[in-house]
């Protein structure tokens, strides 16, 4: 039998790695792989309408499942169109493998048609990348790519495959090496035992401890261990934006999201704690505000799989490098061994409950106008107890969902936190729907964000992906406008979307359903009707108050507790 070609090896390797879905867009430099993909019984391909959409879909699929997302695009513009989407996955450490076609090796460097240095263009936004030089490198690099993407701190990996590595057959005597071993890449899994003992002793003796966790707990499948630790020590829990859904929001230990638009009690808990037990967070500037004023009295215990995240922004007094699930398991083991148990923390909880009561989330209710928060609450109320996934775009609506929705199960909240990519939410919802066809998949978006990737309405029609899109439509770029309103003398430079399409007719033009609502009295029924149309993609265009603002809002340069709580205080 003849040896397989490079393109055949791509498909075989992907099948062998368990890939079931691949999102992409063809072109001349990737046509051979597409041709082989047609023969595959095990991999189904989703043709997006833009390469950025394809990679966001693969990203949404990965976030909703924990599997490695996989996308396939052509060289040149195909590859450059994916850059924002790769950077989005990189920003949130999402496992993704992107296969890009490339011009033949002999043409590389000649400015050939649709040639771009994909490795060079993507280098700062990938965990790693490969350029195949010979057909036999194709299966090897693909296996390494999946291994690198899905281990340690996860992230996107690009495999660039020139056309002349796709068509030729594997050389004579070719034997595939299926094990991946990389001498230069060995992520730490288990934490240092001595450090873990120190960490747990510190936690057990703290009088005002707080546990903060981030997206790594979800990506690292460590939610159960986290919950057990919280219960054993009766710990107050706060989350970053990326950690939302990793711990049930209805649990009494949960204080909510911290940071720029964090919940009052959560930010106060941070500021007043004496021990901060941080799991899989990277202390982004939106979390810490001014690092010099961050947790001024706390001993910081920091667990992270990425040693470079430890003491990068916030100095860790007790660093522990390792996988969140493994290390939290070790922490629980250490508690048993050392007979450590938490105290009641009565005084601390009294203080925290005081914070909760002092300033729960609230917003004004002007007559006759729908507030964006109302929409989030209306959808949330109808979905509780059901199987759902929620994606967002970026801006005010994203913060309202983070504050008001109330997530209970890991992976149900999907958002671009690190990079903050407008246009992410809708294709990510399509990817999540691909992964969970029976679940309700909701995309909360704004009229600004939605127009950045709305071409994927065609993809959703073609592949029957009946997601529900709630556009919190205020005809402005709300978050930027909020800053202009508060800090730029209401000079609304370039934030007014004076013209928007008729989103209902837009939905209809793509063969979907559309509902417009502007009367507060009709909001509930519109939400109900939209969610009831199981087999239809529905755009619900909700006209909301353009003057709504996200509060709490931290004063830039202040501490965690420097918060503006309402417009009157601003």
């Amino acid at each position, binding site marked *: 039998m003849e040896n397989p070609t490079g393109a055949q090896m791509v498909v075989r390797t992907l099948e062998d790695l368990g890939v079931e879905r691949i999102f992409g867009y063809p072109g001349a430099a990737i046509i051979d792989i597409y041709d082989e993909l047609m023969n595959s019984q095990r991999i189904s391909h989703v043709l997006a309408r833009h390469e950025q959409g394809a990679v966001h879909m693969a990203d949404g699929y990965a976030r909703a499942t924990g599997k490695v997302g996989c996308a396939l695009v052509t060289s040149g513009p195909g590859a450059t169109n994916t850059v924002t989407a790769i950077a989005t996955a990189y920003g949130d450490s999402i496992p993704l493998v992107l296969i890009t076609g490339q011009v033949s090796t002999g043409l590389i460097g000649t400015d050939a048609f649709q040639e771009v240095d994909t*490795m*060079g263009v993507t*280098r*700062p936004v990938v*965990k*790693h*990348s490969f*350029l195949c*030089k010979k057909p036999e490198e194709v299966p090897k690099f693909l296996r390494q790519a999946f291994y*690198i993407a899905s281990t340690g701190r996860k992230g996107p990996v690009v495999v660039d495959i020139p056309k002349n590595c796709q068509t030729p057959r594997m050389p004579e005597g070719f034997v595939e090496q299926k094990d991946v071993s*990389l*001498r*230069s*890449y060995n992520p730490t899994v288990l934490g240092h035992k001595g450090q873990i003992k120190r960490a747990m002793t510190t936690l057990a003796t703290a009088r005002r401890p707080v546990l903060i966790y981030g997206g790594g707990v979800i990506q690292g499948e460590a939610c159960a261990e986290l919950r057990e630790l919280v219960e054993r020590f009766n710990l107050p829990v706060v989350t970053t934006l990326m950690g939302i859904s990793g711990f049930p929001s209805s649990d009494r230990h949960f204080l909510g999201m911290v940071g720029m638009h964090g919940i009052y009690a959560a930010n106060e808990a941070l500021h007043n704690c004496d021990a901060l037990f941080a799991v899989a967070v990277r202390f982004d500037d939106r979390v810490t505000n001014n690092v010099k004023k961050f947790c001024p009295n706390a001993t910081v215990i920091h667990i992270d799989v*990425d*040693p*470079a995240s430890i*003491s*990068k922004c916030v100095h860790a007094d007790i660093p522990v490098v390792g996988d969140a699930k493994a290390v939290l398991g070790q922490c629980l083991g250490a508690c048993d061994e050392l007979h450590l148990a938490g105290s009641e923390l009565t005084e601390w909880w009294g203080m925290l409950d005081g914070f909760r009561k002092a300033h729960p989330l609230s917003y004004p209710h002007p007559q006759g106008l729908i507030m964006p928060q109302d929409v989030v609450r209306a959808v949330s109320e109808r979905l509780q107890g059901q199987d759902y996934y929620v994606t967002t775009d970026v801006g005010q609506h994203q913060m309202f969902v983070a504050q008001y929705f109330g997530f209970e199960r890991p992976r149900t909240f999907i958002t671009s936190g690190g990079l903050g990519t407008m246009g992410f939410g809708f294709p990510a919802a399509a990817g999540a729907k691909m992964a969970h066809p029976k679940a309700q998949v909701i995309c909360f978006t704004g009229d600004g964000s939605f127009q950045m990737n709305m071409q994927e309405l065609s993809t959703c029609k073609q592949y029957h992906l009946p997601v529900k899109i709630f556009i919190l439509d205020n005809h402005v770029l709300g978050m930027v406008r909020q800053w202009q309103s508060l800090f730029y003398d209401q000079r609304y430079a370039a934030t007014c979307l004076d013209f928007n399409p008729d989103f209902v007719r837009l939905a209809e033009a793509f063969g979907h359903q559309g509902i417009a609502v502007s009367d507060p009295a009709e909001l509930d029924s519109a939400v109900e009707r939209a969610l009831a149309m199981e087999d239809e993609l529905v755009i619900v265009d909700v006209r909301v108050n353009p003057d709504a603002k996200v509060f709490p809002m931290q004063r830039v340069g202040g501490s965690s507790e420097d918060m503006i709580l309402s417009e009157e205080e601003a």
Partner: protein
Amino acid sequence: MRRTISILLENESGALSRVVGLFSQRGFNIENITAAPTENDTVSRITILTKGDSMVVEHITKQLHKLVNVIKVVVLDDFPEGCIEREILFLKVQAATRAARDEVQCLCGIFRAEIVDVTPDLFVIQYVGEPDEVDRFLRAVRGTTDVVEVVRSGVCGISRGERTLHS
């Protein structure tokens, strides 16, 4: 503070650009850099001279470690035994007059530099030394004659004593 970092990494295309890219991407500074394969031709060794306080250097080494191609990273100055650093300097200088030739030759004698190429008007001088010595020699030559061209190799470093760096 000036620090010398040694990096062992896979000798693959693109590996060097990841290292260099990391420095510019994260706002670290490269004073100079040298790179070449080691005794094992699948492994390259890079020496980078950088500036920064201990926090910055720790951050740099952690980020370098994170690169998938990078096998080992050490800060040579951190070793208690210290390290040996050398740089090669080539100078093309005016030596058209008898007086200039004598002065340059005299200076080379004092600094133990070699004259490796001669034309009726020019000398090429080769000097090997620690970076500070290279600076001093360069200043001395500039004070003596016109320097037409300067080439510095960047620093190569190795630890002193028993300590070795292997892949």
